[in-house]
């Protein structure tokens, strides 16, 4: 399988994970390890930056995990830039999952503020992975300002509804010169497999693992689904047909 490269960093796993909603930090750690994930996103607001012994960070201290701080909770570009600087200092990484959702109900990303913040943060030396709606034009605009990837949503975050935006995701994948990570709404391993089969470079999964009755086993299931989906993509899927096609019903007379 081809490795995934983002901003010069090579990932062997195409499953990115989140850290919210787990019933304990021990379980979170076990599930993330079982997922084989190498990129783990952490909400800055959940971490006590003044405290080096912060519980959450203690449980994420593994050589296999690269931390991806996220700006969840901010409502504007200005707040996001401030949060990014805090995160860079405290977590010692210039990687950032940029999420600006002024709407606390469905947590839908603000395209205007996101583009503004992305442009600024790239100039400040951040590796920016923006969470956005499945908007192909916005994804091209973000690519143009220098984001390291784009993270369009499959469905509202936490909804487990699957790839509701599939037609737009296909366009984004087709047009993108940077990695496309499908971020929200992935509810089951089959959704993840489907995303990878379509050519998405990776998926980010949180709720579906954290809220499962058995997060460790569910993490393993996602791990395998992502591998299967990617293998199928690399192998090249045979085209699907609604009806069986006889060998040459129309031009058989030419033989």
């Amino acid at each position: 399988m081809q490795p995934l490269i983002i901003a010069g960093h090579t990932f062997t796993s195409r499953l990115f994970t989140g850290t919210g909603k787990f019933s304990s930090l021990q379980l979170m750690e076990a599930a993330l390890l079982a997922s084989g994930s190498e990129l783990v996103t952490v909400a800055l607001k959940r971490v006590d930056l003044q405290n080096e012994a912060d519980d959450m960070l203690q449980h994420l201290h593994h050589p296999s995990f690269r931390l991806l701080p996220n700006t969840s909770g901010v409502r504007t570009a200005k707040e996001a830039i401030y949060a990014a600087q805090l995160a860079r200092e405290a977590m010692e990484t210039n990687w950032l999952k940029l999420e600006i959702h002024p709407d606390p109900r469905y947590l839908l990303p603000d395209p205007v503020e996101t583009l503004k913040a992305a442009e600024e943060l790239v100039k400040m030396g951040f590796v920016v992975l923006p969470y956005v709606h499945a908007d192909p034009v916005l994804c091209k605009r973000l690519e143009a300002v220098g984001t390291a990837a784009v993270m369009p949503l499959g469905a509202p975050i936490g909804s487990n509804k699957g790839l509701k935006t599939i037609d737009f995701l296909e366009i984004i994948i087709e047009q993108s010169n940077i990695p496309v990570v499908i971020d929200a709404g992935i509810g089951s391993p089959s959704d993840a497999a489907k995303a990878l089969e379509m050519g998405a470079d990776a998926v980010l999964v949180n709720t579906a693992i954290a809220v499962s009755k058995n997060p460790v086993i569910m993490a393993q299931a996602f791990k395998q689904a992502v591998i299967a989906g990617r293998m199928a993509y690399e192998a090249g899927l045979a085209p699907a047909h609604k009806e069986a096609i006889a060998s040459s019903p129309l031009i058989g007379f030419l033989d």
Partner: protein
Amino acid sequence: MSSFKNIFDQYNWNEIKESIYAKTTADVEQALHTHKRTLEDFKALLSPAALPYLEQMAQLSRQLTQQRFGNTMQLYIPLYLSNECQNICTYCGFSLDNKISRKTLDHSEILQEVAAIKKMGYDHVLLVTGEASQTVGVDYFKQALQLIRPHFANISMEVQPMDEAEYKELIPQGLHAVLVYQETYHREDYKLHHPKGRKSNFDYRLETPDRLGRAGIHKIGLGVLIGLEDWRTDSFFTALHLQYLERTYWQTKYSLSFPRLRPCSGGLPPKVEMNDRELVQLICAYRLLDQEVELSLSTRESARFRDNVVKLGITALSAGSKTNPGGYAAAVSSLEQFEISDERAASAIAGMLREQGYEPVWKDWDAGF
């Protein structure tokens, strides 16, 4: 300027009450099986007709809550700054006509309280006062926020309603959320319970969330004091208010509380009793109406009740609370607002949550935001 009053005035209390009590089994079943629930569905779920469906409601409520909020529970604690009050409220220990000595914390007392609360592990704090705008007004709050902000990730307030300009002054000082309970949406009875003081102005209170929304607050808490009037009708109006606010101030988050009247010094007994079964019904009905709203439960409720309902839709708990200014360290024997029921320490509540498969969350915001 548009406000909730324009909508509220179109409703008649008695008609709403009758329509809730007229809901049938068929209405309840429809409400349970639909995907996006309306206020009519909510009425059915609130109605006596829904009581036989409580187990099913609880299952659904739990599932919806878990999907949205995961297996986590936010913990917060009240910090009472003052029990001075110019209002007469028939149900409250701080009422002006309750002849007790009054206390407002000064700066050093506030810092003593902060230190005691921090020791318990808290990072989210709720500041509470009576209503004494001369001594405990916007300037006092501003100074209190400046003192407290360096110590907490998230600060909420439950104090007298203020003007939009005053909220705009306090928000940049770190004010994240404001809780303002209407107490009751029954206009006439509201007058009886609040005969004197600024609080007797029903409309000013009713429009407070609008002023907060316009000021750009992050979170608004709504609720009624259960026991003053028919809780079903009052809860319908709470939901109506919530839906209006969600549409109008879409960048703001909302939380609901459902405090049942507790005994207090000089207070009236409740006019309307709500039993445990009915409170569970209300919690589940709120969740089935709104998957995203935060539902908060205080130490007014008993330990046994709290242990059992944390799984049914609640997303935030207080613990180890004192309801008197200075109660944690600075003036432990001052007058309390009401008697709490669950007296367990924060660490015991955290242990109870872990045992039930919940991760207690102490910090879910950053003072820098």
